C-alpha cells in the first residue's frame, strides 16, 4: 500500500502530463488555420511560386483564384485592376488573366520592345544617306539579345528603333512571339473577343515626300501564315511631322478553334523617297506598337457555344 501523499502526487503528475498533452494538441493544426493567415502569407509569396501554391490543396487554390487576392497585389504593384473587365475577372479561370496581367501586363504592354525613338531623337538630324539604306542603330544590345530575327522578305534590314532611308526601298520589321510574351492559346480563348492592334509611325523628309507600305502577318508556331493583311501604298507630303496609322485584327468567338495555332505576329513596314535624286534627308520610321485589347461583345458571339 502506497502512502496517501505518494498517490496524491502520482495523480497530480498524471494531471500535469494530461494538461501538457492538451497544450500540445492545442497547437493550431495547420489544416484548420483560419484563411486569414494563409491569405496573409500567400500575399507575400513571389509570383512565380503562386503556380506551385495553387497545386497544394483546394483551399489554397480557391484563395488564389479569388479576385480579392489579386486586388491587393495589383495595389501593391500600383497596377490598375480595372483594366480587366469585370466579366473576365469573374469567369472561370479568370485568375489566369489576372496572373498574366500582373506578371506580364498582357493587356497593357507594347509587345514591340523597341525603344521609342521620338524621345531618343527629339530633333532629327538625318545624316547623309548612302545609296541604299541608312540605318541608325540606337540600341544594338537588343539585337544581341536575339529579340529580332532576320528574314529575307523585301530587302529588309533590321533596326532597333529608328531608321532613315534614301531613295531605295528600305524596310523594318519585328516579330512578336505571343507565347513567349505570356499570351498562350488558353488565355486567348478566355479573353475572346479581342483584337491585336498595330500602330506605325513614320515621317517624310522635310524637303521631299515619301512612300510607305506596311503589312501584318499572323503566323503559327511553324511560321506558316494564318492571315496576311497588306496595306496600300501611302504617300506622305514633304514635312517633318510624324504620321501615324493603326490597324487591328479581331478575333471573335467563332475563331476560338483557330487560336491554338496563333503564335507570332509579324509586322513590317517599308518606305522610300518619292524623288530619286535626294540624299540630304530621308524617310523615317519610328517605333511601332503592338497591343492586345479586349473588344465589346457582339450578339453573334453569344450564339456560339
Amino acid at each position, binding site marked *: 500500500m502506497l502512502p496517501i501523499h505518494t498517490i496524491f502526487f502520482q495523480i497530480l503528475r498524471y494531471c500535469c502530463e494530461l494538461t501538457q498533452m492538451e497544450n500540445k494538441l*492545442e497547437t493550431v493544426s495547420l*489544416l484548420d*488555420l483560419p484563411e486569414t493567415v494563409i491569405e*496573409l502569407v500567400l500575399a507575400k509569396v513571389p509570383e512565380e511560386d503562386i503556380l506551385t501554391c495553387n497545386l*497544394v490543396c483546394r483551399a489554397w487554390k480557391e484563395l488564389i483564384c479569388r479576385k480579392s487576392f489579386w486586388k491587393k497585389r495589383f495595389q501593391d504593384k500600383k497596377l490598375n485592376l480595372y483594366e480587366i473587365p469585370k466579366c473576365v475577372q469573374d469567369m472561370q479561370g479568370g485568375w489566369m488573366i489576372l496572373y498574366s496581367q500582373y506578371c506580364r501586363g498582357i493587356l497593357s504592354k507594347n509587345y514591340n520592345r523597341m525603344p521609342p525613338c521620338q524621345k531618343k531623337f527629339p530633333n532629327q538630324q538625318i545624316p547623309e544617306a548612302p545609296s541604299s539604306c541608312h540605318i541608325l542603330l540606337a540600341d544594338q544590345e537588343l539585337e544581341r539579345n536575339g529579340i529580332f530575327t532576320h528574314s529575307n522578305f523585301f530587302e529588309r534590314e533590321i533596326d532597333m528603333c529608328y531608321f532613315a532611308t534614301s531613295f531605295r526601298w528600305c524596310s523594318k520589321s519585328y516579330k512578336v512571339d505571343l*507565347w513567349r510574351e505570356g499570351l498562350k492559346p*488558353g488565355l486567348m480563348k478566355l479573353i475572346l473577343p479581342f483584337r491585336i492592334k498595330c500602330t506605325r509611325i513614320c515621317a517624310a523628309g522635310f524637303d521631299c515626300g515619301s512612300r510607305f507600305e506596311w503589312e501584318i502577318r499572323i503566323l503559327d508556331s511553324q511560321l506558316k501564315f494564318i492571315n496576311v493583311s497588306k496595306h496600300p501604298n501611302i504617300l506622305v507630303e514633304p514635312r517633318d511631322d510624324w504620321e501615324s496609322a493603326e490597324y487591328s485584327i479581331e478575333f471573335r468567338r467563332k475563331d476560338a478553334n483557330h487560336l491554338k495555332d496563333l503564335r507570332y505576329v509579324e509586322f513590317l513596314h517599308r518606305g522610300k523617297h518619292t524623288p530619286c535624286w535626294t540624299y540630304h534627308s530621308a524617310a523615317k520610321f519610328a517605333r511601332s506598337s503592338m497591343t492586345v485589347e479586349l473588344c465589346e461583345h457582339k450578339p453573334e458571339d453569344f450564339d456560339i457555344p
Partner: protein
Amino acid sequence: MALVRVISSDGAAFLVSQRLAKRSGKLKTEIETFRKSSDNSEAQPEIRIVTIRAEILRLVLQWLQQHQNDPVLPANQNEQDGRGDAEMGQSQWDRDFLAPMDLGIVMELILAANHLEVKGLLDITCKLVESKITGRTVDEIRTAFKLKSDFKGNEEEQTRLENRWCVEN
C-alpha cells in the same frame, strides 16, 4: 507609469505599460475607447483579447518590448516601397526569437499580430512562413504545412494545365 491589463483568451492577465501597449494598433484603439467611456481618467484599462491565448500573447508582448523604440510602421505601407519590409527590420534578436518556434506557433503569431495590428511582427512572421513556400515543390510545401492533397477527379490535372498556360515557353 500608466498601465493596462491585457487578458488572454484563457484568462491570463498581463500588466504592461500603456506606452508599450499603444504600439499595437488594436490595443491603442481599445485604450482610447476605454478613456472616452470612463469618467475616471486614473482608472486602469482592462482589455480582453478573446482570440489569443496566453502563450501567444506573451510572445507578442515580448516582441513589442524588444522593439519598443523602433519607429512605428504604418499598417498600410506599400510593399513596393521597400521600406518597412521584413528583411530591413529583421534583427538577430528577431531571428533568435523565431528560431525555436514550430510552424504552428508562428502561424498563431501571424494571426495575433494581424489582430493586434503589429506590422513589424506580422512582416517577420509572414516572411518566415513564406520562406517555407518560396522555391519549394508542391510536395515539400505539403510536408512542411502537414497538408494533404484534397483535389477530386481531374482538378489537379486541370490546375496543372492552367498553370502551363500562365508560363512562357
